[in-house]
C-alpha cells in the first residue's frame, strides 16, 4: 500500500488514543470545503449548485485552521468546489501542514501546474488529483475535452518538483473494468504515490441521475476491476475498504468519521447528505441523530452508498477492533492481494 509509514503511525497512534479514551465516535479525516465554486461542471457532481453570491464566498485561512483545530482529525482533505480557485489556498495548506496535519488537496489539476510555485513539497501535503478513468471516460465525466491531458501534465510537473501526488477516481455505471485496469497501470507508470477509488454518490442535485451505481453493481464492478490486483498498483486506501467495495466484507457507515466543514458550518450528517448544519464540531458530534443514517437505519439515501468518506473510517476502525481484521490488513499490505 502507498500510505507513508509516518502517516500510518500517526493515524494508528491517534486511533489507539481515541480507543483508550473510550470514545465511541471520533473523526479521522476533516473534509474541508473552503469554497463551492468550480471551474468544471462534472455530470455526477451535486456539490456546486448554489446561487453565485454563495459560490463567490470562501473560508478564510483562519476559518480553515480553526475548523481543523476544533475537529482534531489527523488528516484533512481539502475539497470543494475546486480548491485551487481559492485565492489563499497555499496559505491554507501551509497553515495545516505547520500543524502537522496530513493534507490531501483535492483538485481537478486544471490550475495545478501554474500554482505549484505557491506550495512547498512536504510529507504532510499531497495533491489528490481527480481522475475518473482513461482519457475518454475522464473527459466525459468532467464534461470537457482535454482535461485528462492537462491533469497528466500537471501530475508530471508536481512529481518532478518533489510533491506527493495521488489520484482520486469516482466510478459510475458503465465503467469498463478492463479499461480501468489499464488506467491503473497508466497512473502507476506516471509515478503517483497511490490511487483512491470509490463509487459515486447519487447526489440529488447532480445533473446526471442515471449513472450512479447500485450496491450489487458496485460489488460486481469492483470485483472485476480489483480481482487479482497487479503488484505494481498502490492504493492510498485501507485494503479492507477495497474488499468492502468488492463485496468481500460488509461494514456499516461511519458518517462522523469524515466530518465536513464549509461556509455554512459543520454539515450534518456527512460529506454527502445535507440535513442542516451544526455551529460547532461538538454540536455536530453530540446532537446529530446518528441512528437515522447508515444502511441499517433504513434511510433510503444510505442504501446504495459505498463512498469512501463513510466506509473508509469503518474499515480503519474494524482493523483496530479485531486482531483478525488487523491481520488481514497487514497481509494485504504485504502481499498486495485483496
Amino acid at each position: 500500500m502507498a500510505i507513508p509509514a509516518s502517516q500510518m503511525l500517526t493515524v494508528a497512534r491517534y486511533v489507539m488514543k481515541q480507543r483508550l479514551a473510550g470514545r465511541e465516535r471520533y473523526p479521522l479525516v476533516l473534509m474541508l470545503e473552503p469554497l463551492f465554486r468550480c471551474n468544471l461542471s462534472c455530470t455526477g457532481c451535486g456539490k456546486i449548485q448554489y446561487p453565485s453570491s454563495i459560490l463567490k464566498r470562501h473560508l478564510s485561512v483562519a476559518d480553515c485552521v480553526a475548523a481543523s483545530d476544533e475537529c482534531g482529525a489527523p488528516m484533512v482533505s481539502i475539497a470543494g468546489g475546486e480548491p485551487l480557485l481559492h485565492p489563499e489556498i497555499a496559505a491554507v495548506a501551509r497553515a495545516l501542514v505547520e500543524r502537522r496535519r496530513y493534507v490531501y488537496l483535492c483538485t481537478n489539476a486544471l490550475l495545478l501546474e501554474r500554482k505549484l510555485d505557491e506550495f512547498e513539497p512536504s510529507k504532510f501535503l499531497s495533491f489528490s488529483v481527480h481522475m475518473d478513468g482513461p482519457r475518454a471516460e475522464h473527459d466525459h465525466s468532467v464534461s470537457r475535452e482535454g482535461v485528462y491531458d492537462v491533469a497528466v501534465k500537471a501530475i508530471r510537473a508536481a512529481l518532478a518538483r518533489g510533491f506527493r501526488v495521488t489520484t482520486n477516481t469516482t466510478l459510475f455505471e458503465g465503467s469498463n473494468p478492463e479499461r480501468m485496469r489499464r488506467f491503473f497501470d497508466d497512473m502507476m507508470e506516471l509515478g503517483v504515490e497511490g490511487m483512491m477509488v470509490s463509487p459515486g454518490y447519487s447526489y440529488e442535485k447532480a445533473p446526471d441521475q442515471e449513472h450512479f451505481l447500485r450496491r450489487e453493481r458496485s460489488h460486481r464492478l469492483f470485483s472485476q476491476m480489483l480481482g487479482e490486483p497487479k503488484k505494481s498498483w498502490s492504493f492510498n486506501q485501507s485494503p479492507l475498504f477495497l474488499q468492502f467495495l468488492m463485496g468481500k466484507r460488509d461494514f456499516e457507515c461511519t458518517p462522523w468519521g469524515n466530518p465536513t466543514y464549509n461556509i455554512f458550518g459543520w454539515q450534518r450528517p456527512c460529506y454527502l447528505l445535507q440535513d442542516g448544519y451544526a455551529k460547532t464540531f461538538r454540536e455536530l458530534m453530540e446532537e446529530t441523530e446518528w441512528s437515522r443514517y447508515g444502511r441499517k437505519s433504513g434511510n433510503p439515501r444510505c442504501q446504495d452508498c459505498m463512498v469512501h468518506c463513510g466506509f473508509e473510517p469503518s474499515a480503519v476502525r474494524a482493523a483496530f477492533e479485531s486482531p483478525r481484521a488487523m491481520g488481514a490488513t497487514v497481509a494485504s499490505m504485504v502481499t498486495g492481494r485483496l
Partner: protein
Amino acid sequence: MIEARIAQLVDRAFDYRGYVTLRRSDGSEVVGFVYDRGASHLELLDQSATRRMRVPLAEIADIAFTGEDAARKSQEIWERRQGTLESSETPAHGDWGEAGPVLVLVALEQELRAVGRALDGAPRAGKVRGRLGGNDVVTLASGMGKDPGPALAEWQPRLVVSCGFCGGLDPGLIAGDLVLATAVRAASGEVLTAPEPARLAAAAMLEGLRYRQGELVQAASVAATVDEKRALARSGALAVDMESYAVGLEAAEAGIPWLVLRAVVDPADSPLPEFTREARRDYTWPALKYALKGPRAAARLVRLAREFRLASDALTTGLRRLGPALDAAEARP
C-alpha cells in the same frame, strides 16, 4: 404547531438551491438562502451571503421561491449539452476569471495612510498593497478630482472602492461618521446607483458602527463654506466629495462593481479653512500660517485636526470591517 401548508413550504425551501422570500405574519419580508432548520426556526444567509438570519417558523406566513434554482439550472445546462463536451479552449478558471485585486482609490496622502493602517501596510510612492479579509487589495492615491481611468486599466480590479474623506451635508452627520453611498450624483445632476450586491454586503459588515447610507454628490472643488454645502444639500445628498462619481462612472463603464465608503471630516455647519481647497502632500505650513491669523483661527485649526483624526480612524475601522464583504462583492461572473 405550524400549519401543514407552511411545513411543506419549509421542506421545499430547505431543499431549494436558490433564494427564497419569507413573508412574515406582520407583512415584512426576508430574502435569503435557507441552509439550516431547527424544530422552531429557519437559518438563512442574506443575498450577499455574508449575514446569517434566524426566522422563527411561527412568524412565517408564506414562502415564495423568488431566486433562480441553481440545481435546476445545472440540470438544464447538462440536458442541453448532453453528449457534447465543453471545448478544451475553455479558460482554466472556468467562469470565474483570474481574480484581479480590489482597487481602493483615494485622493490624498492622508487618506492613503488611513487605508494603509487597515491593510497593515505603509504607503510607498502613493500606493499601499495588502490584504483585507483574504483579498489582495491595492490602494492608490491619485490626487483630488483626478481621472480614475488609468488606474482601472492598469490593475483590472474585480472591485473598485472609492474611499476617503467627505464633507457632511446632512445636519445629522458629525465628524467621523461613515457614509456608504447608495448612489453618486454628478455636479451636472446625473445619478449612478451603486451596485447592490457590493453595497449590501458592505452594509452588513458596517453594522454596529456609526454609518449612514445615502447619496453622495460630486463637487468640482472643495466645498469649504457652509453656504456652498447648503447649496449642495438641496440635491438631497448626505455628503459631498470630488472623486466618487468619476470612479463609479469609470467602473460601471468597465463592467467592474464598485463601492463608495467615505468618512465625514467637516459637518454641514462647520466651514473649512481656505487652504484646504488646494491638494497638498503636506498641510503643515499652510496650517501654521492660518493659525497665526489669531486665536479664533487657531481654535478652528485644533477642531479641524480633531475632526481629521476622527475621520481617519473611522475610515481605518470601516475598511477593516469591509474585509469579508470584498469577497461577496466580486461581481464576476
